[in-house]
């Protein structure tokens, strides 16, 4: 009894579970029973959403626009004309950057016309020889962070060139080079705004939540209608996806700046502008830099999805390779994406970390030596390209642009690796798979589906109330109510079943792995690098081997989900444990705790709130991947989202389903975030 009075939450949980199971047994499963399933009162919602979105996109405020293509005036909706203007601005910049790398005539077209190009075939911008870009990458790496980065940049760009992925890589790079800086800037601006104005934070928060948890596939069609098909649309979709973490981390960083620092800034007579850019942002640098890292990762993680709406480059080649089951080629392309991500990430961090040396007294040569070297590399590269033109007279000029698929290829090697894994583990995994499906997954799925709606509400709202409070419980109830009143409750339960199974495994796996690696600085670095790898390595690639090993079953979806959802659990655990101050380690050691005691009683409790935020991200990553799992074959919300694309009412259905997925994520988010914050306060970490 004593234990129970000391731990009131345990009592509450026991009561909650008792009520939950009582409801599960008491409620009879019949469609007319309101406690079993709520009536689909929001059945019409997708159609209303569809009609209103269509109205906005196609009918609202029509204006007469001259269409040069058919030499006539057409009635076009204002909103779409506005979004299209944004699109063409993006396209112009993307094409410009792309043509610096690869040559072309679209930038010239933008200032003249296609007729001009037809009459003047010479009006074409030449590509930079790949040798020049590799040379520049090495120089830039060296300038930013010395030899190590120079080697890294050189290896990455050489890989792209040697393995014949030069052209698609540069295409991908050119749109990432727009999407990433825009996301960073936008994130910074919005983050500052939210920091300065409370109402902005309240306004942005739900928007960011939805933008981060809504599956991309559900807004693909609206993006196509509003922004068109092509690299510009892909860039915009990528920005929508990559900006939220930047906003959050900027805000977080700024809020963490100690009041003393601000006071010191005020005392020195800073203007508001100086206070922001000379005091607050430099102090919040660490979090903001994690934001930059996340933006780069997210941009490259989007390359495949972006190819669904017209992004040229690696993503589209990847889908083509996978569709004829050339997994080796797929892996080779995937490695290119990862290399670009790693190089960009390290370079942007080095650039952001570079301190200006105000007192250096440099000669003209010292100040401009890099420009000079860059010029030399350029001249040498161009001369090489001309020599190449003479040597490779009939075929391809390998010193100018390595043609696509004509370089050396590692695809057979990767294919052989995949085949080997397949040969070696196939029968073993088949037995495991059969056991998992028949003894765990099918019963679990049936249990989820056998839950009366009333019991689900009691359970989720109860957990919310116990861990976070009445307000959170009500918010969770509202999220669930939306799903319960839609037609998709059963499907949402299936999504929840796959996601929750994957989250549990990922969390256990990630926290264990993270804890082990966090004991050692080098191991931490390595594991964070592996996290970066799996976050940008396109999941579509391992979907195929996973299907081959586990068939078109829920196991495949779960395995793919675990691979992806373990990333944040590991990353946040490592970061959380590593950020426990050394002083506390020392204090513990002085009190004579063993290594294990120190870990259990000092490190884990202190890192716990941060780890919980990792679990929060794990839930979001898991939901994201379960929806992608529709490409394997599921019977959950994702399947309907995929189907919605070709449906005449698809825009509305897709968006409603997307909201359902987002609300599942946000309901969990409500609990964990509030709870983690309270723990933080209790531990004096805030």
């Amino acid at each position: 009894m004593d234990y129970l009075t000391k731990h009131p939450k345990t009592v509450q949980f026991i009561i909650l579970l008792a009520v939950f199971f009582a409801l599960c047994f008491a409620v009879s499963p019949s469609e007319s029973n309101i406690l079993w399933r709520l009536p689909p009162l929001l059945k019409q919602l997708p159609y209303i959403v569809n009609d209103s979105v269509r109205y906005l996109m196609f009918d609202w405020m029509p204006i007469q626009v001259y269409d040069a293509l058919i030499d006539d005036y057409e009635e076009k909706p204002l909103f779409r004309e506005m979004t299209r203007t944004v699109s063409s601005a993006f396209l112009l910049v993307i094409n410009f950057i792309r043509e610096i790398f690869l040559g072309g005539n679209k930038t010239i077209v933008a200032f003249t016309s296609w007729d001009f190009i037809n009459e003047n075939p010479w009006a074409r911008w030449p590509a930079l020889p790949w040798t020049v870009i590799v040379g520049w990458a090495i120089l830039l790496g060296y300038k930013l962070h010395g030899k190590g980065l120079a080697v890294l940049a050189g290896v990455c760009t050489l890989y792209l060139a040697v393995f014949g992925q030069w052209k698609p890589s540069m295409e991908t790079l050119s749109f990432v080079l727009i999407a990433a800086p825009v996301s960073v800037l936008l994130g910074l601006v919005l983050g500052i705004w939210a920091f300065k104005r409370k109402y902005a934070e309240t306004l942005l928060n739900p928007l960011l939540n939805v933008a981060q948890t809504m599956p991309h596939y559900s807004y693909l069609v609206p993006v196509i209608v509003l922004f068109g098909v092509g690299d510009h649309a892909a860039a915009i979709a990528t920005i929508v996806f990559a900006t939220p973490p930047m906003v959050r981390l900027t805000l977080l960083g700024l809020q963490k700046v100690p009041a003393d620092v601000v006071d010191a800034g005020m005392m020195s007579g800073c203007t508001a502008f100086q206070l922001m850019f000379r005091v607050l942002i430099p102090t919040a640098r660490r979090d903001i830099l994690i934001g930059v890292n996340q933006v780069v990762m997210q941009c490259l993680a989007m390359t495949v999805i972006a190819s669904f709406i017209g992004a040229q480059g690696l993503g589209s080649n990847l889908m083509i390779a996978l569709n004829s089951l050339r997994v080796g080629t797929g892996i080779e392309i995937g490695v290119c994406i990862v290399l670009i991500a790693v190089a960009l990430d390290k370079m942007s961090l080095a650039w952001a970390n570079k301190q200006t040396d105000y007192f250096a007294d440099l000669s003209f040569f010292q100040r401009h030596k890099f420009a000079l070297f860059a010029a030399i590399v350029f001249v040498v590269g161009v001369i090489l390209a001309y020599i190449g033109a003479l040597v490779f007279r009939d075929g391809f000029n390998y010193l100018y642009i390595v043609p696509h698929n004509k370089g050396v290829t590692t695809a057979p090697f990767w294919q052989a690796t995949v085949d080997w894994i397949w040969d070696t583990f196939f029968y073993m995994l088949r037995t495991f798979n059969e056991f998992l499906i028949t003894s765990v997954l099918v019963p679990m799925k049936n249990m989820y589906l056998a839950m009366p709606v009333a019991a689900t509400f009691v359970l989720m709202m109860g957990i919310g109330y116990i861990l976070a409070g009445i307000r959170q419980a009500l918010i969770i109830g509202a999220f669930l109510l939306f799903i319960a009143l839609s037609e998709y409750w059963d499907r949402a339960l299936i999504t929840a079943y796959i996601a929750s199974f994957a989250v549990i495994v990922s969390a256990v796996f990630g926290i264990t792995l993270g804890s082990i690696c966090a004991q050692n600085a080098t191991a931490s670095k390595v594991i964070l690098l592996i996290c970066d790898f799996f976050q940008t390595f396109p999941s579509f690639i391992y979907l195929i081997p996973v299907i081959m090993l586990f068939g078109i079953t829920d196991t495949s979806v779960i395995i793919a989900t675990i691979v992806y959802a373990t990333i944040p659990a590991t990353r946040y655990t490592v970061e959380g444990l590593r950020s426990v101050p050394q002083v506390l380690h020392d204090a513990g050691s002085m009190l004579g705790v063993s290594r294990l005691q120190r870990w259990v009683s000092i490190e884990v409790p202190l890192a716990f709130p941060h780890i919980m935020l990792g679990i929060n991200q794990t839930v979001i990553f898991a939901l994201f991947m379960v929806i992608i799992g529709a490409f394997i074959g599921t019977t959950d919300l994702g399947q309907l989202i995929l189907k919605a694309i070709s449906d005449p009412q698809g825009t509305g259905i897709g968006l409603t389903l997307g909201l359902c997925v987002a609300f599942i994520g946000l309901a969990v988010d409500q609990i964990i975030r509030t709870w983690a914050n309270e723990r933080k306060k209790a531990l004096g970490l805030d």
Partner: protein
Amino acid sequence: MNISIRKPLTTFIVALSFVLFSGSSLAADSSEPIKIPIKNWSSQIVMAHVIGGMFESMGSNVEYVPVDNQASFEAVRTGDLTLVHEVWQSTMQNAYYSAMEKGGLIDAGTHAAETLEEMGVPNWVIDKGLCPGLPSWEALKDCHENFATPDSGGKGRWLEGPQSWHGDVMPNRIKGLGLDDKWVVKFAGAADALWAELKAAEKEGRGTIIFNWTPNFTDADGFTFIEFPPYYDGCRIADGGDLTSTGCGSPTGWLKKGVNYRFPRSHPRAYTAFTKLSFTTPQIGSMAALVDVEGMTHQDAATKWLADNEDVWKPWTVSILGDTN
């Protein structure tokens, strides 16, 4: 009209204006690029480059845009893509006709090729005797155990493509054939999941029955389509049928083309050629084989195909008004 031309000068001006206008404004195509979608299967990509090459030979500019298949129809409708050139009846007609009904996509004719999209088995399933009596559908009554998977609850698994392709046609067909106590339909998520399943099943030596079509790259390894009761108009539920009639097989399908509504006005000559364009099944098969069997890149395959088959496509590009420009 009573115009009599009296003066030589007037004659000259009238003649000149005819030359000028017939040349530049009536028949000339815009120099804006024609945007052709690149999707994710071989024949489609090679054909995209073949069609692009044909347009280029007519002096048009061409741009290739990678895009998701199901999403491409909306893009043609709004004019971000100019055309779609390989619309398979059974898997894409929903998206195609829904874009047409919403307005903006117009039909641009049908290829000569007839497509077959149907459930079937790889040849080794028959060779191994996993279902004696195939390809007749009656054989399915007695062999479902060989096609069971851990999650199919003892029934044979009937692997259909994504639900977006034909909705509930397959579940209804199983009911219509009275096979629903022996078979259960599983929807794969995407085409590549189907191919992965083919490969895994072969490895394991277990039976597999999947939705497939021809021409396709799986033809090379041997694939047999199951013979179902013949299709007739109205046998499916969507066409007014009921569960007694849904046992019918798939019809031989059309392969259509579609364009954005502005294309005929902006590129009348290219549009004319595109409507005349029509490929046969062997031609499409040969395009795909250049990539899938001979390992060429899609562009190289298209260049080679165009060079080898000038007699096929050149006639489509000939202007009936005469080559005035």
